[in-house]
């Protein structure tokens, strides 16, 4: 197979604690150096938590695997200092086309709202992304990334956990106040803890292939239902960087994964799809069955689950890595406040409350897309095909076509951390929603709103406001017109920012509460609520 990418090999180093045999207690240990584990460690570091990452391997993701990254994860990575680079290097795309048999049935445009720093969606190979995250971890003085460290056992005690770890130098133990399991859908940690991971398996198999070709297909997402080159199944084509293209073939339940993966079987399929004249090379092939599952509890004592270790979705809609990054965003500030004794353990339990809710929402979207792509009965297949036939001429049928709803954040509208509105507001930014970005000016320079929010609680005000402190936690003031200039009026528009309006924004850039005028007592009550102090 052809290679556009050379896998780095990271050096194993024996840790001081293993060499000395002196058991050390770490504030946070992350298991798994994938995109989610490294994002978690970088966010912990950004908030001042020294973090050890243990990974049983010594390289990045083999194969590109996750491909599409959505705006919200890019905003989180921007907070961690790597988002701009991903946005610049990734492939940006907007148009998706859906074909039924040999005709275009429907075309959509992501129509990203203008005036956000980050694009709606980029395509970027997972290995590129991970390589950059490894560098960010290496550059951080608070992240200690240890390769070839395999966790064999976890003893989950009352106020810490003891990990038994195997390295090329043998077995040793280390202690952690908190463990974050980011070891993927087949999480060994989850098995060791004995947590339930239940849901629905789909009775279908997919072949996923990355091919290298210099073809002049446009930078669009193409999805086929029942195409002439692959009858009765579906196919997806999507562009990545370096002339690499992602192709997914639905194979059906009877397919033999080992046979299907063989180049002599894969190549004819792809050639039939691309046409006889297109030259290509296979870069990576895999066959998988997918499932939509979730862990029972996101926290088991001192062990907290993030990413695919906590929830697994089908790939349609790019909800795997994207939702995992949002787990990290939600967990970091809560754990930091609990570690520092500024908030009770109950705050940490809202990590499960909010992210299990988001996981269920993602699983719902993912399940519905999968049911549309792979109908389970003759009658649901007939309904599906009726939608596709109607979609060619009937606008009403087009929104019913579901080849994957692309990942957007799930607002925590029911969260116990929210203070419900007592004043009427227009717009989308209800309590529990992630903050919308907007262009601003600061000290005469163009800048972006989200970049001004910092790491703590913020009062975004459209009038006078004072900093408010509860239990040692301060919400600082960012006043529009004083600290930043809303030159184009977009902040006021997106936040319904009539004069006097104040938003209380959480450290993960979500709205906790809002009012039409600043009232210190009300802000105090809302801040206490967002800290789970009442």
């Amino acid at each position, binding site marked *: 197979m052809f290679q556009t990418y050379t896998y780095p090999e990271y050096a194993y180093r024996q840790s001081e604690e293993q060499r000395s045999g002196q058991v050390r207690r770490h504030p946070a240990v992350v298991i798994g150096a994938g995109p989610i584990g490294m994002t978690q460690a970088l966010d912990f570091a950004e908030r001042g938590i020294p973090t050890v990452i243990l990974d049983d391997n010594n390289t990045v993701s083999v194969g590109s695997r996750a491909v599409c990254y959505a705006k919200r994860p890019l905003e989180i990575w921007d907070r961690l200092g790597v988002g701009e680079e991903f946005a610049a290097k990734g492939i940006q795309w907007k148009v998706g086309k859906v074909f039924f048999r040999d005709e275009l049935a429907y075309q959509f445009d992501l129509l990203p709202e203008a005036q956000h720093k980050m694009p709606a969606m980029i395509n970027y190979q997972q290995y590129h992304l991970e390589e950059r995250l490894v560098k960010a971890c290496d550059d951080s003085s608070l992240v200690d990334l240890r390769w070839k460290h395999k966790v064999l056992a976890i003893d989950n005690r009352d106020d810490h956990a003891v990990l038994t770890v195997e390295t090329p130098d043998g077995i040793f133990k280390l202690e952690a106040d908190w463990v974050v399991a980011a070891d993927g859908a087949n999480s060994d940690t989850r098995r060791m803890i004995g947590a339930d991971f239940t849901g629905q398996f789909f009775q279908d198999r997919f072949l996923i292939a990355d091919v290298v070709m210099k073809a002049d297909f446009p930078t669009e997402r193409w999805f086929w239902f029942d195409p002439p080159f692959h009858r009765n199944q579906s196919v997806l084509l999507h562009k990545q960087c370096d002339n690499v293209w992602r192709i997914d073939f639905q194979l059906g339940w009877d397919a033999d994964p080992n046979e299907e993966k063989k180049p002599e079987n894969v190549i004819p399929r792809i050639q039939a799809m691309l046409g006889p004249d297109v030259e290509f090379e296979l870069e990576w092939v895999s066959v998988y069955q997918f499932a939509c599952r979730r862990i029972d509890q996101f926290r088991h004592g001192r062990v907290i689950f993030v990413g695919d270790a906590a929830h697994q979705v089908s790939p349609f809609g790019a909800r795997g890595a994207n939702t995992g990054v949002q787990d990290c965003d939600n967990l970091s500030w809560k754990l930091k406040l609990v570690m520092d004794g500024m908030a009770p353990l109950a705050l940490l339990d809202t990590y499960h409350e909010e992210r299990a809710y988001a996981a269920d929402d993602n699983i719902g979207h993912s399940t519905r897309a999968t049911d549309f792509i792979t109908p389970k009965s*003759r*009658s649901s297949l007939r*309904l599906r095909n009726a939608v596709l036939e109607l979609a060619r001429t*009937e*606008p*009403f049928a087009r929104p*019913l076509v579901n080849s994957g709803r692309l990942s957007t954040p799930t607002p925590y509208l029911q969260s116990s951390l929210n203070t419900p509105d007592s004043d009427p507001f227009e717009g989308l930014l209800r309590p529990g929603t992630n903050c919308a970005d907007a262009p601003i000016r600061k000290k005469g320079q163009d800048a972006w709103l989200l970049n001004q929010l910092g790491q703590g609680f913020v009062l975004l005000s459209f009038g006078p406001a004072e900093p408010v402190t509860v239990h040692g936690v301060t919400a600082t003031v960012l006043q529009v017109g004083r600290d930043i200039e809303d030159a184009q009026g977009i902040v006021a528009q997106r936040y319904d920012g009539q004069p006097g309006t104040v938003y209380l924004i959480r450290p993960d850039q979500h709205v906790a509460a809002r009012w039409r005028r600043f009232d210190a007592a009300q802000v105090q009550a809302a801040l206490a609520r967002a800290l789970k102090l009442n």
Partner: protein
Amino acid sequence: MKLIREPNIRDQDLFYAELINSQRDMSEEQADMAIAKLALILANHIGDRTVLSEAIALARDNTLATPQGETA
């Protein structure tokens, strides 16, 4: 009144899932029968003969416009 041909259902994915799920544990014959009944129930609810004629013609024309043998 004219037949609405623009999207008119909120939360369309949840509607579609409900429709598909309503056929769970049915035989193929039962599922066909349920869809036929649904067409009649909705037709009665709409009532307006002009709208119904337009809908009937659309379903017929759209289906005939698809080459035979391809419809599942």
